[in-house]
Structure formats: structure tokens, C-alpha cells
């Protein structure tokens, strides 16, 4: 089992070099987020007026911000926030969206109500929905997660719905019905496992969107409240100080860009690897 897994990973890395590179970035990001407390050289919220705006040096590898806080440590702790927000929001969206999509496919009478509601949600740009939800519920990390999840739910619902519609027409589903299986058993053991691959791809493609939206909300001051270290908030701060201290703009921006790039190429690679129809193309 373990050998098969390592074989699969090696094969994937060989066939999809860019995606493997993306996977390395994603892995580094995840490790950084989890072990932020051990990896960061300094307390991210340690203010030191004396070190205000110092450029990168031996003590501050990536410089310090206007309050003299270590940019490297803040980026490392920012990774934790991004990781937490993106994983929970996309996880929540995937769970609710896939459930709605499968249920709407199976119960004909629920199809129009659920899917038309999803269409309505899909008609709004994501950031507008997110802004509305934050405006109603107020700032805070949980509300950011909820806002991102709600605007991603219809994307999962639509994908799962389409896949479930074709999966449930398979003879083995009919055979399960003829065998007297309950609806819950049919949906969880016969429909869901057969549509899971494209959903995994969708998760990996929507995580960077979630990271960007979370950073965007913080950038306009509606995300995680200060002084929490967050990439979007760091970039917002650099609007004022960036001209004096370019390292305040460059490094958080670079971190954001790298992580989003990593997830995107990993997602593309996963899609190619999991979808046999796309094999050998591109």
C-alpha cells in the first residue's frame, strides 16, 4: 500500500514536473503554517520603535515594518492564517456544495429549488457576496471563512450535480436500488465515491481563490482585524510606507504570489492526472 503510494507520487512528479514544483511550494506553505511558532525567529507582534522600517539585515532577514516588527516572522504567521482560512472555507464549501449537488440530482423535486438558488448565488461576483456577509456579520476570522465558503458553495454544487446526474444513471446504482439499499447508502457509497476525483481537483483550484479573497478582504480592512499578522493586511500597511521601505511590499506580495501559483499548477496537474480524457494533451 505504502509502496504503491510512493510509486504513484514518483510517477506523478515525473509526468507533471510543473505540478510537482507546485506541490513542493504547497507543502512548504502547509508546513510553514502548521509550525509557524517554531519557525519564526521573532514574535510577530513584538514592536520596536528603534527598528522601524529597517531594510533587510542580519537581525531582520526581510526587514522590519513601520512598527519595527519582523517582516519574516509576520509572513510566517500570515501563512498560518491563510492556511487556516483557505482550508476551512473551501472544506466547508465543498462539504455543503457537494451534498446539495448530489441531493438535488437524486431527488427530482429538489432539483429546481436547489440548483436555481445556486444559480442566483453564482450571478453575484464573489467579492460582492463576501462584502455583504461581512457587512451583516461584522469583521473577524470566522466571518471571513463563512463569507468565502458561501460564495464557493454554488461552484461545488454545480460540479457535483452534473457529475452525480451521470453517475446515478450507471447500472450499479440501479442494481443498488433493486437490492433495496437505502438512499443514504446509495448516495454515500455508490454515487459519491465515483465523482470524488474531479471534486478533489476543484478543491485544489479553489484554494488559491480563497487565499486571494481573504487577503483582499484584509487589504480593504474588512478581514482579520489588526494586529494579527496577515498578508493582505501587511500589503495594506505598505501602501503608506512602501516608498520608504520597499521590503514591506515585496515580500508579503511574493509570498502570496508563490502560494497561489503553487496551488494553481498543482490543481492543473491533478486535473490532468485524474482525468483520463486529458491525458497526453498540453
Amino acid at each position, binding site marked *: 500500500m505504502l509502496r504503491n503510494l510512493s510509486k504513484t507520487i514518483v510517477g506523478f512528479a515525473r509526468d507533471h514536473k510543473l505540478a510537482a514544483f507546485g506541490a513542493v511550494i504547497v507543502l512548504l506553505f502547509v508546513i510553514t503554517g502548521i509550525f509557524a511558532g517554531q519557525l519564526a525567529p521573532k514574535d510577530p507582534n513584538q514592536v520596536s520603535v528603534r527598528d522601524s522600517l529597517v531594510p533587510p539585515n542580519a537581525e531582520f532577514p526581510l526587514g522590519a515594518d513601520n512598527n519595527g516588527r519582523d517582516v519574516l516572522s509576520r509572513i510566517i504567521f500570515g501563512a498560518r492564517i491563510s492556511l487556516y482560512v483557505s482550508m476551512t472555507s473551501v472544506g466547508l464549501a465543498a462539504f455543503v456544495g457537494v451534498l446539495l449537488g448530489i441531493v438535488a440530482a437524486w431527488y427530482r423535486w429538489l432539483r429546481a429549488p436547489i440548483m436555481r438558488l445556486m444559480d442566483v448565488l453564482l450571478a453575484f461576483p464573489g467579492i460582492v457576496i463576501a462584502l455583504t456577509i461581512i457587512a451583516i456579520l461584522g469583521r473577524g476570522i470566522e466571518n471571513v471563512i463563512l463569507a468565502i465558503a458561501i460564495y464557493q458553495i454554488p461552484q461545488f454544487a454545480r460540479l457535483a450535480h452534473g457529475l452525480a446526474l451521470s453517475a446515478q444513471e450507471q*447500472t450499479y446504482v440501479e442494481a443498488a436500488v433493486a437490492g433495496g439499499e437505502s438512499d443514504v447508502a446509495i448516495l454515500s457509497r455508490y454515487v459519491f465515491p465515483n465523482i470524488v476525483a474531479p471534486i478533489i481537483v476543484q478543491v485544489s483550484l479553489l484554494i488559491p481563490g480563497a487565499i486571494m479573497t481573504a487577503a483582499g478582504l484584509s487589504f480593504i480592512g474588512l478581514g482579520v482585524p489588526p494586529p494579527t499578522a496577515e498578508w493582505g493586511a501587511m500589503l495594506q500597511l505598505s501602501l503608506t510606507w512602501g516608498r520608504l521601505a520597499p521590503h514591506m511590499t515585496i515580500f508579503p506580495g511574493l509570498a502570496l504570489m508563490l502560494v497561489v501559483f503553487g496551488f494553481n499548477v498543482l490543481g492543473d496537474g491533478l486535473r490532468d492526472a485524474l482525468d483520463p480524457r486529458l491525458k497526453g494533451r498540453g
Partner: protein
Amino acid sequence: MTVALLEVENLKTHFFGRRGVTKAVDGVTFSVEKSEIVGIVGESGSGKSVTSLSVLRLVDAPGRIVDGTIRFEGRDLLAMSREEMRRLRGRRISMIFQEPGTSMNPVLKVGFQIAEAIRSHERVTDAEARRRTLELMDLVGIPDAAHRIDQYPHQFSGGMLQRLMIAMGLALSPALLVADEPVTALDVTIQAQILDLLRDLRDRTEAAVLLITHDMGVVAETCDRVLVMYLGRVVEEAPVDKLFDAPLHPYTQGLLGSIPKIEEKVEWLEAIPGSVPSPHDVPSGCRFSNRCPKVMDVCHTAEPPLIEHGPGHRVACYLYTTEAEEDRG
């Protein structure tokens, strides 16, 4: 007279499509006795598959059972709630399908799926379910069951998968097994093995079988009694040897006449003229009248009833009624 295991009376299953109503099954009456193998034969579009799906109430929208009664073990299936029906399926009536290759969930191990069939109706421990699964796999003749129980469907051949489907169908010793073209997708030697298995299992488990097929050879080899369907109605019903020795209905005669026989040398096989009319455009009177070589005036007036003609032999044709004799003068 004892009550039959399955009694279907005047069953009508219609499909309500955009282009009007398709009467796929239009007044079918038959019964299946305990541990009897009954065949339903007919061409594509004769309604034989829809009949079998109706028995399990598996007809999906836009189709609907519009009339008739289905009594199984004395209970009216059409009056049951969805939940009662679900508990009946797999436990008292089970079904096997045409394509063994797609009838099993590709992402689950076969042993798990057979055990699941048991677990969905009975509370059993994992060890008990596994033991019974192994027994069933032995019963249907899967070699090395202890090893193969943990394999996935793609690791089995079509014939082996059909054996597994039969094992799953028999998991809870149902009284009736509905088999919809169980051997059509298999090659001929495997067909013979599966049919032997069905007969053998019937003898051992006393489960009745309702066998849907378009293949007269399969019928001859397996069934005790046969129903011949044409355009949603039963045109002839007879014990299997009677049907092959002395077919009454011109359609049955045509079907049997179009099979090559090994002992006769003929230049041309007889074919039934024309093709099955669209179900939207059924001829008035007898449905077979526009293709029948023995058509009479009376055939265009009204549908002939299914009338007893000899013990257990029923036919729906005016050739065998008094009206016909009057018609001929």
C-alpha cells in the same frame, strides 16, 4: 387453486413523453409459481424489460404504472409505501441486470458489495457477513473465493461478474429473482454456464426466476414456462416444450421459423415481414395484424383476448376463437 408467488394482472405501464404517451406495457397478465422459471421473450420494444422493472416498481419518470395489480406472496406491491417496497427489494425479490461489467460499483471491493447487500437488510457482524459472502461466492462457483473476495470488479471477467451479481441477488434467499437479459452480454460458452447455474440454484434454493430475454435458445435451455410479448401485450403463453412443438400464434411461429435448425438444410430462413411498429402508432385491432401472414377481417376490429387453448397454453389470436370460425363462414 393455490395462490401463485407472483400474480400480475392487467399491468399497464405507460411513458408520458413530449411526443405523447408510449404504452410500453399495455395490459399484461401472468403469474409465476414457487420455484418456477418463467421466461418472457420478445423483440426490442415489446415491453419485456419494462414489465420486469414494473414488478420491482423501478420504473422512473416519465414512466408510470397506470393500471393493474401486482400481487407478490399475497401482498399488493402497488399499494406498498416506498419504504416497505425498499425492504422487499433484495430481500424477497431481487434483480440482476444485462451488463455485468457495469452492474458493480467500480470503487468498492466485490466482497464488500455482496456483504453490503446482506447488511442493508439484516443486522449482522462483519465476520458473519464475510462468512456468508464467502459461502455465496462458493455457491455461484467462483474459484479461490477467499482470495477474490478482496478484489475489485475490474479484476473479474464478465462471466465471473455475472456470477457475483447472482450471488448478490441470492444473498438473502429471495423468493423471486428477476433476471433482465442476464447472459446477453456474455459469449456463448459462458452463457451456457450461467444458465446452468441459474437452473442449478433454482433447484437448490427454490427461488423462482423471471427471465427476460430475446433469445429463444436461452428460453429452450432454461425455462419451464414462456410468455411471448409483442408491443406491450402477451400474445402467447405456454409450457416450454409446447411452445416449441406447437406454437399457435403466427408471431411465435414467425419467431421460431426465423431460427436456423441444425437438422434441416434450407436455402432461406423465414423472416417476419416488416418491422415492429412505433409504439406511438399501434395498429388498431390485433397489434400484429399489419405483419401477420394469416390476417383476417376480424383482426382489424378489436384486440383478441388471451384465451386458453389446451392445458396451460394460452393464445391471443382470432384463429383460435369461435368468432374467427364465424368470420370464415
